[in-house]
């Protein structure tokens, strides 16, 4: 080593310097600032210290509670469906004897190039009352009456779930595919010779090998869905029929930039998301560890 260790340490900090400076101003400071704001009450730029007044307001705010419930509902329904689909498709595509694998993979992966706004445009027009999806369902005789996708509370939520699933399934599938390629094919060969059926191979070999990816995709999807904004703001502006698609992020946006700004309260709502992310990540890690034990 040509250089003294002290000097290389300094170089190291110089390399990290620009990133750490930017993060201090545009990440750490905002985090602390919004924590401080959440203790302030008032409109616009006129703040006064309110202590826990904003937290009390949360318990009284029916709109907030609905946004929280909506966000959690979307999360609980959408994430498991998408992760399961992504995993199944990856398993199907991982079969080397399958013809047209590359084509299928590209097609299923394609949705993730679209911007969130762009695919919202597509879904809003396809799911119009007389739109192509309702026409198609009628032609298949699945429905005799068009579904009010955009004007009914239940269907609006369903539409948002379908849209997110369309956009992100292929994206998550890529992680599963990569992980499947790391499993030694000779294990399956041995299982096949022993006469172990396919479904048992899936449960005994594939699933345990995929555990880290299931955790990774579930955590990132959970964080993503908790922050859901672009799609709901474009497909169902203002929170959709009777606020059925109002998410926490959309509510924060409305509180801060749409109505008379109430930054302190909005910051309090944003910390609800932070707490939710922390709780859910923690639960998922604990569950993952418990499963590993036996």
């Amino acid at each position, binding site marked *: 080593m040509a250089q003294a260790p002290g000097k290389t340490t300094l170089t190291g900090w110089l390399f*990290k310097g620009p*990133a750490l400076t930017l993060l201090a101003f545009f990440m750490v400071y905002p985090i602390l600032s919004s924590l401080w704001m959440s203790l302030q009450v008032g409109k616009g730029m006129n703040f006064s210290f309110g202590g826990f007044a904003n937290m009390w307001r949360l318990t009284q705010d029916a709109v907030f509670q609905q946004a929280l419930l909506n966000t959690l509902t979307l999360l609980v329904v959408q994430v498991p469906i998408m992760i399961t689909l992504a995993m199944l498709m990856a398993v199907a595509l991982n079969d080397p004897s399958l013809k047209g694998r590359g084509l299928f993979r590209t097609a299923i992966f394609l949705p993730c190039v679209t911007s969130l706004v762009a695919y919202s445009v597509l879904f809003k027009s396809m799911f*119009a009352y007389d739109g192509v999806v309702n026409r198609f369902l009628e032609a298949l005789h699945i429905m005799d009456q068009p579904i009010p996708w955009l004007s009914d509370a239940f269907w609006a939520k369903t539409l948002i779930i379908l849209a997110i699933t369309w956009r992100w399934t292929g994206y998550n599938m890529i992680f599963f595919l990569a992980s499947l390629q790391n499993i030694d094919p000779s294990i399956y060969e041995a299982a096949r010779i022993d006469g172990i059926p396919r479904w048992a191979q899936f449960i005994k070999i594939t699933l345990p090998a995929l555990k880290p990816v299931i955790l990774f995709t579930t955590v990132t999807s959970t964080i993503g869905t908790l922050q859901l904004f672009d799609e709901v703001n474009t497909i169902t502006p203002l929170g959709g029929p009777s606020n059925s698609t109002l998410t926490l992020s959309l509510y924060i946006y409305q509180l801060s930039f749409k109505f008379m700004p109430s930054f302190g309260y909005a910051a309090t709502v944003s910390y609800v998301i932070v707490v939710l992310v922390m709780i859910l990540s923690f639960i998922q890690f604990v569950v993952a560890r418990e499963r590993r034990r036996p």
Partner: protein
Amino acid sequence: MNRQLHRIMVYALLSIAAFVSVFPFLWLILGATNISPDILSGKTTPGHALFDNIVKLTQQVDLLQLFYNSTKIAVIATALTLVVASLSGYAFEIFRSKLSDRIFAGLLAMLSIPFAALMIPLFVIMAKLHLINTHTAVIIPTIASIFIIFYFRQATKSFPTELRDAARVDGLKEWQIFLYIYVPVMRSTYAAATIIIFMANWNNYLWPLIVLQTNDTKTITLAVASLLSAYVPDYGVVMVATTLATLPTLFIFFVLQKQFVQGLLGSLK
């Protein structure tokens, strides 16, 4: 027999999935050639309104300006992010100490903080700096992307130590090792990161929506959203705008699919 049935089911399922995935893209192109009422009534054949829709779009928005703004923001943000994030990602792996590792763990914890929790203070900061409605305000908070720092740190684990040691023995300075050895060796990592950062910036919506307030500073993504939020949106026009907004990322996807996939997986290594 059972095996064959299984095979057929797999093909059927994958075909449905592929159709569902690709159909909206066909719908987009069909939509660009149709008039709004036809789009909303589910017409699935090409129309004759493409030229009309383009003309109407150019009357409503300044396309050149929108593309200039989007490209400018995405290119500058990508370049700065690459420099800042790769330097620190490299350093977090190479120049390690207890303090450095602790800071890195802190950064990872911040990765799960939602943007909604940051946007109000960020807006206040930008207002104080008189940067509201500027592209600088859009770019600055995205540069030190923790995700990309993490990505480069993971990738640096595969950077051969012998190369670095040899260079040190040869008397190269640390910045020379980074610039003349690390960057060229890791070019596929840079390629993948470039795609991810460029797409994220090109498609960014919430933060630009808050910061950019006049038509001359807006991006193509914002323009699509505002065309759609009109009281009676003209879907033919919106579809043309959406097609144009999607073309660059679609192009990148098809040309650089391999690197794109590799880029996504880089964070998982």
